[in-house]
Each structure stands twice: as C-alpha cells, then as structure tokens.
C-alpha cells in the first residue's frame, strides 16, 4: 500500500528541526531518518503522521567519532557506515560484525543507528549493542539538551522515554574495556530477517579468570538488557564450555520471553540459553592471541 498523506518538512539545521518539532509534535509529527521502519509502517497504515520532519538534509549529523571513553554516533550515521571498522581494533570489528546482521545491504545504506535506538524494536541489534556495552542518548529540543543512560531509555517494545518534541541527535556508545573480547550470536529463520533471539557477550582475562563480564540478550524480552545473574556466575571463573553452559542455563529462569503465534515463550527461553552460550564461545575464540575480535 501507499503511505497516507502528510506534509514533508526538510530542515537544514538541528535548530530548525527542533523548531518544527516544537510546533508540530503535539499533532503527531514524526522525525524521518532512514525511513526503513517508519515508511513500511506508514505503507501498512500502522502510522499516520500528519507531518514528517526529514533530517537527511542536516549537515554534520553523520559523524562517527571516538571521543574519550565513547564512540559518538550522529543521527545520520547509517548501518552501512559500520560495515568496515570505524575505529581500529576490536571495537570497530565488533560493530562491523554486528552491522552485517541488520536487515539487508540496500536497507543498511539508508537505516540509521540512532533511528534504531529511537524505534526501539525488541529485536534491534543496535539496541542490544547499546544495552550491553552501555550508552547515552543525547536528546535535543527547543528547551535544551539532555542525556539519558541506556538503563533508563527503553520503556517497552517500541517505546522510549524520548518526548515527541525531542530529536535524538547522538548516541554515545561506551568503549569496551581494554583487552576485552566479544562474541555475538543471533537466530532467525531467513537471512536478514529480524532476530528471534540474540546475545552479545564479552569479558577480559586476568590470570586465567574472566573479568568485566558483559552478557546481553535481545529479541527475547520486550527490551534488550544485561543479565546480571548470568554475568555473576561467570565473573572470576576460568572460561570454558562447562562454565558457559552452566551460566547460560541461569538465563532460562531469569527471562520473561515474548510470545507470538509462531514462537512460544518456551522456545525463546531455550533460545536465550543457546544464544548466550554461542556468543560466549565466540568471545573465547576472540581472546587476545586468538584470531578475532580481541583487544
């Protein structure tokens, strides 16, 4: 189907966009970034925004820059821009690896990192990445700027604490610990489909024991998150298939899985365990000295 009628606004600056949002957000105006989620929703008549504020003409929003302890990702950085390492070393390699799991090539050329965080699909790879590595969302409106930590960002499936008149101008993605290594696993039925379950895991080795353990799950629950119980079971242990399996099994009792007609909750519960185990196994292969995504 075709999208319902709307008025397209094409601001040239962030201030102009904030002004348009201040004037029109109450009536339902939406930001148009890559359009790879919003336009299908309009075509399916799931969204009827009377106004679209197209940010694609705003110069400077496409920046991806390492800055202190984080990577600053502007609102027009596309999924595609991460396909080759954006920063040297394991961090860039991890983001490149994950970007290839998102949709398909011609969707990645348009879709944006920040749009994924704004859209907050439970299966979004970038939302899982932000939740697991840590991130801050920088919001701009006429009232000023505020930064929201990822722990406070998601309110539910496709819902965030962003106010309608706020533009997400940048995501600050935390840089993983020096020496840490990472693994990612996602399951879907066809290449490029949304994940049914995914996990991102990382740790660094200190005297043969795992430290700074991060284990996050996506597409399993309404909101991606780290699993503290699983991380605690791994912290200080030597890595290995047994330790990974034992810890991953804790996830089965810790998650409240989404359910749909094709995927019962128990299926996702099992998948969470498998995804975590496989992400950890990939992280083990990537430890320094091994080939892969190690610092």
């Amino acid at each position, binding site marked *: 189907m075709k999208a319902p009628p*709307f008025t397209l606004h094409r601001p040239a600056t962030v201030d102009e966009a904030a002004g348009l949002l201040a004037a029109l957000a109450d009536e339902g105006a939406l930001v148009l970034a890559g*359009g790879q989620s919003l336009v299908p929703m309009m075509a399916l008549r799931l969204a009827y925004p009377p106004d679209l504020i197209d940010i694609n003409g705003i110069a400077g929003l496409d920046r991806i820059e390492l800055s202190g302890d984080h990577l600053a990702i502007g609102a027009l950085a596309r999924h595609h821009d991460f396909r080759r390492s954006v920063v040297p070393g394991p961090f860039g390699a991890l983001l490149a690896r994950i970007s290839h799991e998102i949709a398909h090539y011609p969707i990645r050329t348009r879709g944006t990192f920040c749009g994924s965080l704004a859209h907050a699909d439970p299966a979004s790879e970038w939302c899982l990445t932000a939740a697991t590595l840590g991130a801050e969302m920088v919001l701009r409106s006429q009232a000023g700027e505020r930064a929201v930590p990822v722990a406070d960002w998601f309110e539910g499936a496709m819902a965030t604490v962003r106010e309608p008149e706020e533009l997400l101008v940048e995501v600050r993605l935390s840089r993983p610990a020096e020496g840490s290594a990472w693994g990612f696993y996602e399951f879907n039925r066809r290449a490029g489909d949304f994940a049914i379950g995914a996990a991102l895991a990382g740790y660094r080795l200190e005297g043969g024991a795992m430290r700074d353990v991060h284990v996050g799950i996506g597409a399993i629950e309404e909101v991606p998150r780290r699993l503290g119980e699983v991380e605690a079971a791994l912290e200080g242990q030597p890595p290995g298939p047994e330790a990974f399996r034992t810890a991953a099994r804790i996830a089965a009792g810790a998650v409240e899985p989404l359910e749909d007609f094709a995927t019962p909750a128990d299926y996702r519960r099992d998948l969470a365990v498998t995804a975590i185990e496989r992400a950890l196994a990939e992280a083990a292969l990537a430890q320094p000295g091994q080939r892969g995504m190690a610092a």
Partner: protein
Amino acid sequence: MSGQTFQLHVNGTSYAVTAPDRKTLGDALREDCGLTGTHLGCEQGVCGTCTVIVDGRPVRSCLMFARQAEGAQIRTVEGLAQGERLHPLQQAFIDAHALQCGFCTPGFLMLIVGALEQDPDMTEDELAEVLSSNLCRCTGYAAIAKAALAAYPRPATPAE
C-alpha cells in the same frame, strides 16, 4: 496531479516532477518519469524489486519519498546499457539464464551493480549475502549468483 514541483536527476537526465509528498521515489520514476523498468512489488521494503542507485548506493525506492531524492543522482535499469551495448551484468544474466519471468531482474541488476561499485573489494561470501537482499520466485538464485560472479569475478577466498 497536485503537489510540489521538483527535479529528479535520473540516468543523467532531469525530469520535472509534480507530486504529493507521499509519493515514493519508485512511483515517481514509473509514473512521472515514464521509467517503468523499476518495478514495485511489496511496497514495504521486503522484496527488493524496486532497488535503484541513489548517490552511488543501492536503496529501496519504495522506502524513499520522491522529494527526498531531489538533488540526488539516481540510476535505474534504463541507464545500464550504453546504446545497443548491454552492461556486462545484463549480458551475464542472459548468458547464465538468470531470469525467467523477469519481474525481479531490474532490482537484482541495480542491487549488484550498486553494491559492487560501492564495495569493489567484497568477497564471494559477502556477495552471496548481498544477493539475499532481494526475492526471486523463479530462478532459485543459483543462476543469479553465477551471473554476478561472471560479471564481477571475485578473488578466491584466502585460505585460513
């Protein structure tokens, strides 16, 4: 047709288009520029038959509004051949029998040309992943992969 009037630059030619904001680039190419080589299937980003190249990158023309492409360089399947001489990928599609009904063909051609011009160092595995972007209900994809590799030979994947 009501709406704003703007220019679209397609295959080196400028077209004055008057269209409402909600008109997609795909529809404008077909209805306002008369370039019916670009096909529309699902109109929700899934099938890829609408793929065109905008400023060097392959995109779904059903997920972009026509006015958003104002000022951009757009390439469609009509711009591939040079006069009577087919683009090497078009010739490879014929040689490898990479089309049957042909509905998906313009999208695959623009997808492959766009992705390989953008990432000429792509490996064979990455090319296979790119081909999974679009749907073909006739060929089973093997012939399309064969044609793509014939037109854009990939170096053998280095041994691990």
